[in-house]
């Protein structure tokens, strides 16, 4: 068992990047809803859960049918969530929305318990050609990992284009920054919020497919763990900022994965605990997330540079 240590490190990093990518996508969708309507959506985990069950039940349709159906179900679920639970509470404060999403999350989990016969363990059967590992110059990779990287990049680029280049994107960004003002310039509240939920659903469906193809086990609470980690990542990066949250999710997923692999066994289990304790510290010390402090640093640097260039005319 003597492997070149460089390739071991590369191996960890590659695995961790795949893990981080999924969390980046999740944190991005969480921050989208948070920005637009102050909603910290606990029930995001249940979008993943509903997608996972869809995959389980439509597995026999073949990959294309299964994925198409999963995307449809998750997006529709997301839109229904908004319509039935959050729209009546549009005027409520963020804390009420938080409890609501908590209640919704539990309700959907219980609904899944009731309707899916939890006595029988369920797994989405993996596709061997996807998960089988092959060696590229001493590093093991699977097609799934490669697909995760590619999909994440495609989605992040797609999201960037959407947010920067389209009218809807500009409206979403404006609403994220100042929802009231965006309405005063004519943005329709229902339209941006529904769009945000639709985008959330779309991202969630992709995350679900990629996640379930690797992990397999379908349980009513399958979404809870990932969503908690994505939460934390979002907070670290700054939920108020879309790129910040995505970066936070990515870094956290990456770091957690690396720590899992490198820490001594006795401490491995505690990594998530430290992540959550760290979140409390960040909330108090740097509520805008790390991206805000980076911005501040950059502004200071700019100012210093401007000063040293000499007095303004």
């Amino acid at each position, binding site marked *: 068992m003597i492997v070149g240590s460089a390739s071991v490190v590369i191996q960890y990093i590659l695995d961790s990047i795949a893990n981080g990518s999924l969390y980046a996508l999740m944190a991005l969708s969480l921050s989208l809803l948070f920005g637009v309507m102050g909603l910290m959506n606990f029930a995001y985990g249940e979008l993943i859960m509903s997608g996972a069950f869809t995959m389980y039940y439509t597995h026999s349709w073949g990959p294309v049918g299964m994925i198409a159906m999963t995307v449809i179900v998750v997006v529709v679920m997301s839109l229904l969530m908004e319509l039935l639970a959050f729209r009546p509470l549009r005027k409520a404060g963020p804390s009420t929305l938080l409890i609501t999403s908590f209640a919704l999350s539990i309700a959907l989990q219980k609904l899944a318990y009731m309707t899916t016969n939890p006595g029988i363990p369920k797994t989405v059967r993996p596709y061997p050609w996807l998960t089988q590992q092959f060696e590229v110059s001493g590093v093991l990779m699977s097609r799934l990992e490669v697909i995760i990287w590619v999909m994440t990049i495609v989605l992040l680029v797609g999201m960037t284009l959407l947010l920067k280049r389209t*009218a809807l994107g*500009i*409206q979403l*960004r*404006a609403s994220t*920054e*100042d929802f*009231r*003002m*965006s*309405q*005063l*310039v*004519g*943005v*329709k*509240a229902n339209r941006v919020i529904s769009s945000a939920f639709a985008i959330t659903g779309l991202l969630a469906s992709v995350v679900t497919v990629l996640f379930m193809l690797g992990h397999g086990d379908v349980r009513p609470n399958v979404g809870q763990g990932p969503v908690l980690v994505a939460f934390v990542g979002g907070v670290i990066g700054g939920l108020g900022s879309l790129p910040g949250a995505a970066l936070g999710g990515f870094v956290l997923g990456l770091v957690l994965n690396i720590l899992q692999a490198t820490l001594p066994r006795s401490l491995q289990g505690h990594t998530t605990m430290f992540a959550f304790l760290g979140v409390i510290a960040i909330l108090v010390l740097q509520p805008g997330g790390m991206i805000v402090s980076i911005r501040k640093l950059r502004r200071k640097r700019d100012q210093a540079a401007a000063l040293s260039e000499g007095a303004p005319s």
Partner: protein
Amino acid sequence: MLEVNELSVSYGRINAVQALTISVAEGEFVGLVGHNGAGKSTTLLTVTGTLRPAGGDVLFDGKSIVGLAPDEILRRGIALVPEGRRIFGRLSVGENLKIGATTRKDKKGVEEDMRKILDRFPVLQRYWNKSGAKLSGGEQQMLAIGRALLSRPRLLLLDEPTLGLAPLMVDRVFEILDDLHKEGTTILLVEQNAARTIEVADRTYVLRSGGRIQFQGTSEELAKMGDFETAYIGMG
């Protein structure tokens, strides 16, 4: 054009505006001045649909607009340049302007208006790609006015557009408002700077705390009252 009748607005238990009645006629330039906390901003936010009144009515072109969503009120022709400008700091200057035209379908008209606005405010052209947060206060004010104008409003509401600006910039803002008025825009201007407001406005209301009217009159009438500023508003 705009009639505010017996309007009352409250925040929980605080009554910010009580039975306020004001009106603005087509083509008029009306000023609204008063103490801090008199309820001026509250009034404007209620007219534009952000706040719901506890009582009274707001008519625009003779029809009640109470209860309409802000975007619908904007569509009918009332735009607000809010207190503190509320520029979208993470959007570029260009995006800030474009989002002002959200309610419009006529692409040609928007392009035309955009050109006019960029001619009027060349700074905005120069900083087209700069993010809103990086503009100076005065530039942000130009941007806020430009953004509101892009909806091609028939009635423009402004909330303390000169707040925190350098004297030269204050002059510039009043100049712009005067120009807009001469070009036919109806304006309701909320200001702390009573003297300047009375100068440019056709008519000015003086508000007392709790949104009650203390005085109203044309600029000449108010000017004749001489020392009224120091006496009643307590501002120089």
